[in-house]
Each structure stands twice: as C-alpha cells, then as structure tokens.
C-alpha cells in the first residue's frame, strides 16, 4: 500500500494544525461503538492519528470496568477531548479544562450546542468560549455551522482551525452545501476541517474534493454494519478526494467532446 504509484501522496501530504503535523487528514470519534475493541479496530483501519473523546462522570457502580484510555494509547493516537453536550460557554469551558487535565495536551474540540433537536451550534456562546480558552492557552478547534461570517469571527477569536458541519451531527446526509464550504476555505487562513454529517465514502471524497484540510467523523463508522471496513473505505475516500483536489479536475461542459481523434477516419 505504500507503493507510490498507488498513492503518490503517501507520507507527503500531512495535515497541519497549529504548526503540528498529522499523518492523516481523517479525524475520527470514538462514540457509539459496540465495544472498546471494535472502536480500536475501526480507528486503526481509518488510519486516523487524531481521535476525539468525551469527558463524562465515572460510573461509581462500575468503576472497575476497563477505561477507554487503556485501549487508546497516547503513543499511538493524539487524543482530542470534546465538549459535546454543553449548552453554555461556561459549561464548555469547564469541560475543556477537565479534558486538558485528563489528557496530555491543551487541544480541545469545542462544541456549544444551541438546540437539542438539530444539535446546531450556539455561535455566540461558541465565540465567547473560543476567546476565553484561547486566552488560557488552549488550541481551540470549534465545531460550527457553514456560515462564513461566524467562521471569520472564530478565526479572529483565535481558533486554530474552523470545523463547519457537512450536515447535522449523526445525520449521515453528506455534504449539503459544497458552495459554502468552498467559500469558507477560500476566505480563512486557518485550516478548515469538515465535522459532522458525512455518511459514506462518497460523501468523504466529495468533501475533500472541495479543498478542505480534513474531515472529522464518528457515526459514519460506528453505525456502519461493519465499522472496520467502513473505516477503511473512508481512509481511501479521503485520500482519493484529496488527490483529486490537488490534481485539478477537468472543467465541466454541458455538451459532448469526443475523446478519440476526429481526423484519420476512413472514407
């Protein structure tokens, strides 16, 4: 698989965020798998280096259960704590601080949810939390909608990357607005990571073809019938989409153009 005729980008196209280099442009979540073993098998198959985790209360009645951390070794994966489930800036800041203490870095995937039904972000609270956490030295990766103005404000507030959704969290609807995503990418200096909504490999490929820096996904893998195989498909799709973007696609036309010579035909 390392044959460069098969994948000329192998090892040569790192994703850069806050001056740190990641070997894969695919970031994966660890939620909703059937077991820790299945989680790790899928993550390995995805090739992802950065992996998100949530912060929750220890179940005191089952504290001897094996922790997820036993399976996600820090030498193998870069753990990115999230603030999923937080509805206010204060809560998100509190979870971010706990995540920093639990982990080995001050990176955070910042979520401040504004609505339970759609899980769309509360952009005002998101901006506030981004400012506070950036000032505390965090590397903040905020999950946001695909609105350009919010994305620009997040960049101004110190976000290390901006993570717009493809479609609602867990929906699997794929990339609903490629135009907005391209617009964000063209206007932001920080990396753009599409987060949420990707359902299958073609969604991931199409998303990467827009020129974004990476994709974060969870449910598309965890809710597949065979997570490990889907993770593998996603790894290839992200690489394929990235390569197609870098290759520069042909222009589209609304009429046919022959591929074979029009000269040299028999009389």
């Amino acid at each position: 698989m390392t044959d460069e005729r098969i994948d000329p980008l192998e090892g040569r196209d790192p994703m850069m965020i806050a001056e740190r280099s990641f070997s894969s442009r695919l970031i994966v979540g660890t939620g909703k798998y059937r077991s820790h073993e299945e989680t790790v098998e899928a993550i390995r198959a995805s090739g992802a280096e950065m992996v998100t985790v949530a912060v929750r209360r220890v179940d005191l009645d089952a504290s001897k259960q094996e922790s997820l951390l036993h399976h996600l070794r820090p030498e193998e994966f870069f753990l990115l704590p999230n603030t999923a489930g937080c509805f206010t800036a204060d809560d998100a800041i509190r979870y971010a601080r706990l995540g920093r203490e639990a982990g080995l870095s001050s990176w955070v995937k910042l979520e401040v949810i504004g609505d339970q039904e759609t899980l769309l972000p509360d952009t005002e609270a998101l901006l506030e939390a981004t400012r506070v956490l950036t000032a505390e030295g965090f590397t903040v990766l905020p999950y946001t909608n695909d609105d350009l103005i919010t994305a620009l404000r997040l960049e101004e507030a110190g976000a290390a990357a901006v993570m717009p959704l493809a479609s609602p969290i867990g929906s699997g609807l794929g990339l609903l607005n490629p135009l907005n995503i391209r617009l964000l990418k063209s206007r932001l200096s920080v990396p753009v990571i599409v987060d949420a909504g990707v359902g299958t490999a073609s969604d991931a490929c199409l998303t990467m073809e827009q020129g974004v820096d990476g994709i974060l996904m969870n449910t598309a893998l965890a809710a597949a019938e065979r997570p490990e195989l889907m993770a593998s498909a996603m790894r290839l799709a992200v690489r394929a989409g990235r390569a197609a973007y870098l290759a520069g696609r042909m222009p589209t036309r609304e009429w046919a153009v022959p591929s074979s010579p029009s000269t040299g035909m028999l009389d």
Partner: protein
Amino acid sequence: MKVEVNGTSREFVAGGSVLALLVELEIDPRMVVVERNRGIVRRDDLDRVQVEDGDRFEIVQFVGGG
C-alpha cells in the same frame, strides 16, 4: 462526615485525602480527573488535598465521543 460524589451523597472518614477517597471508590487516579467544589485538583495534589465535610466532587474520565 458527608460528601457528594458525582451527584450522590456518601460518608467519608474525616481527615482523609482526595487520593484516599479515590482508593475507597476503587478508582485508578491515573484514569480520572477530580473536581472539588468546582475547582480541578491536580493529579500531583490528590494526596495533599484534604476532604472536608460537605465537599462536592465530580470524578470524570474520557469516554467514547465524537
């Protein structure tokens, strides 16, 4: 004395440290973060910080999430 851990009230001996509380709860301190009355107790300080009557603890860990 009474303390609250993860929303549940429980008895704990006076004079014990936060580390002793974790030991009693059979929790590996390397796997969790402890918040005491809304402030994080650094892992290095777990054996130095004394539990006081009425303290409220949140003990959290990393779990699967997206």
